[in-house]
């Protein structure tokens, strides 16, 4: 609904009308369960209190009976409200979310459980995700029921229904009740002055009363906390899949490196030595040449093993820990790198290794893209979190786009519950921070 852009009475009228309309809609959305409760409560008390009518027992017994009847009515109201909630809460909450988006531009996402597929077992039974059933129809029905009524989101919507009935409904209904009441006073009770005053107050309040909906919707219409947990599980599953993938790739890389490198060279060496053994008596000169070759091969094999080991677990990291390993990295970097550390002791090995390789990759990135002249690495530990910040005075514009090295680092950090923060305006300077929560021994 567009509001006229002019001020004055026209605008005021339209705002008031809009407020009244929205109040009415909110009353409709929030009043269903209270209405059912009211009807059941009134009808129930008619029935229940008639039981002890005309009894001539002592006052004590009559009081007990009244108490019992009251409890009975309360039980009926609760049951009716519960059944109503199961049947209408989802619809009403979805409608309320739509209103929130229309009126206030709030995008509230809530996901309801989808109906799971059913599968036929080898035994002939049907599995609905929870239990077995004899017939397909029964399994389908149960799967639908489970998805519909055992959804944590539905219980959460029930809480919204309670909040709405307790807070949104009375406030939103005020202008409407005021208008109707005022009209009644003016026309029927003869309290004309009061009636007009009440109606005027209602009209003044109309543009504001419905706004209680906003903050409460933001608080109670969102996804259920338990489905938040579910989403976290999905995230973690994705991370785990990622990790197993990288681990498999890593093992394959190591295996290939050993198989095609050192292993092959050792075989060649064995063969050379066999040949040298054959020739040593007949042609010692040739044997010497072959042995010299074999020694050169062994040196190459060692160099290959060395670089492979460096890729798995860099020696300084193994011997000295993160801080000195980063210092060694800085010394080997093609640009001038300054390292400052405020890490009091060695973090756990996996975390240490992850942060080390992240910093190594960041420094490699700087050398490749940044055209920087000065690079600083700050290692710090605060609030149970290990941070490494790489700062350079290069061209800036670094971003973790899909498939880039930075997004790879980000993914690996997520696996440790950490994160990557990039601050890199075009023209620099660039600050990239890796943070991983960990406890220091």
């Amino acid at each position: 609904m567009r509001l006229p852009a002019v001020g004055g009475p026209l605008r005021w009228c339209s705002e008031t009308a809009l407020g009244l309309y929205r109040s009415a809609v909110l009353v409709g959305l929030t009043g269903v369960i209270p209405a059912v409760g009211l009807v059941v409560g009134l009808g129930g008390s008619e029935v229940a209190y008639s039981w002890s009518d005309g009894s001539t027992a002592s006052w004590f017994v009559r009081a007990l009976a009244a108490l019992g009847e009251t409890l009975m009515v309360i039980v009926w109201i609760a049951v009716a409200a519960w059944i109503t909630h199961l049947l209408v809460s989802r619809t009403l909450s979805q409608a309320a979310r739509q209103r929130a988006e229309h009126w206030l531009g709030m995008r509230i996402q809530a996901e309801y459980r989808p109906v799971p597929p059913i599968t036929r077992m080898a035994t002939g039974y049907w599995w609905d995700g929870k239990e077995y059933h004899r017939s397909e129809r029964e399994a389908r029905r149960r799967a639908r029921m489970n998805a519909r009524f055992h959804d944590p989101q539905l219980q959460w919507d029930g809480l919204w229904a309670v909040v709405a009935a307790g807070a949104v409904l009375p406030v939103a209904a005020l202008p409407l009740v005021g208008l109707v009441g005022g009209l009644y006073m003016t026309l029927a009770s003869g309290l004309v002055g009061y009636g007009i005053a009440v109606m005027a107050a209602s009209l003044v309040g109309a543009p504001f009363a419905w706004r209680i909906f906003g903050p409460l919707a933001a608080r109670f219409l969102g996804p259920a906390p338990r489905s938040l947990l579910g989403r976290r599980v999905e995230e973690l599953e994705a991370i785990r899949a990622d990790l197993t993938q990288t681990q498999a790739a890593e093992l394959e890389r190591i295996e290939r490196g050993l198989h095609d490198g050192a292993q092959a060279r050792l075989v060649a060496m064995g063969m050379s030595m066999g040949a040298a053994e054959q020739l040593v008596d007949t042609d010692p000169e040739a044997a010497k040449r072959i042995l010299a070759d074999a020694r050169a091969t062994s040196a190459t094999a060692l160099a290959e093993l060395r670089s492979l080991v460096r890729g798995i677990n860099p020696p300084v990291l193994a011997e000295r820990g993160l801080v000195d390993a980063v210092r060694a990295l800085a010394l080997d970097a093609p640009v001038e790198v300054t390292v400052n550390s405020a890490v009091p002791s060695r973090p756990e090995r996996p975390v240490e290794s992850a942060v080390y390789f992240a910093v190594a990759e960041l420094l490699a990135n700087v050398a490749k893209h940044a055209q920087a002249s000065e690079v600083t690495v700050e290692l710090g530990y605060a609030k149970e979190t290990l941070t490494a910040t790489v700062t350079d005075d290069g061209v800036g514009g670094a971003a973790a786009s899909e498939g880039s090295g930075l997004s790879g680092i980000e993914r690996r950090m997520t696996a440790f519950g950490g994160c990557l923060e990039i601050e890199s305006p075009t023209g620099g300077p660039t600050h990239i921070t890796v943070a991983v929560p960990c406890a220091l021994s």
Partner: protein
Amino acid sequence: MRVVVAEDLFLLRDGMVRLVEAHGHSVVAAVDSGPATLDALVNERPDVAIVDVRLPPTFSDEGLQAALAARRVLPGLPVLILSQHVEQLYARELLADGHGGVGYQLKDRVLDAGQFMDALNRVADGGTALDPTVVAKLLGRPMRADPLATLTERERSVLALMAEGLSNAAIAGRLFLSEGAISKYTTTIFAKLGLAADDDTNRRVRAVLTYLGAGGQDDQ
């Protein structure tokens, strides 16, 4: 010479002991752990020690730490450090005290007995014997605002070979120049680095230390 050997792998330790003894030196202690290394170095005061970086019980850099600790007690105690990997960081720490008598080599160098014994002798004489791979890494270092920036390409390569611990004659052989030319270069290098003339070996060591920016100026 009296030699101490510290290495945890039996085969390698045994091989080195044989090699050293075959060249007519005596091995006064062959040890296989960090604490034992420190004891042997301080008590035996060998003419030269061969020490592996990674030793039990922790398998961190115990050998290196033992060598550094021993040199703090006995400044200039000649130590040849062996490792599967050479790291600039460790090279700097070894050279930081400025006393020379330091070697830092890949274990593979033991395969070439002649070169290995050469390096051992140079270290025992108070010179340096750095692995070419360390030196190559140092050459790849960014230029800082230091006297090194004033050296020409040729002077830098002479200095690099000096850091490996070669004599003028050997450097001349590597660069296909006359020995006279090399000694001219070394004189210029000493002048540019502002090293006063005292005994030549010491000056060579100090040139190398300058070259390494020893003292670990950039990581304090």
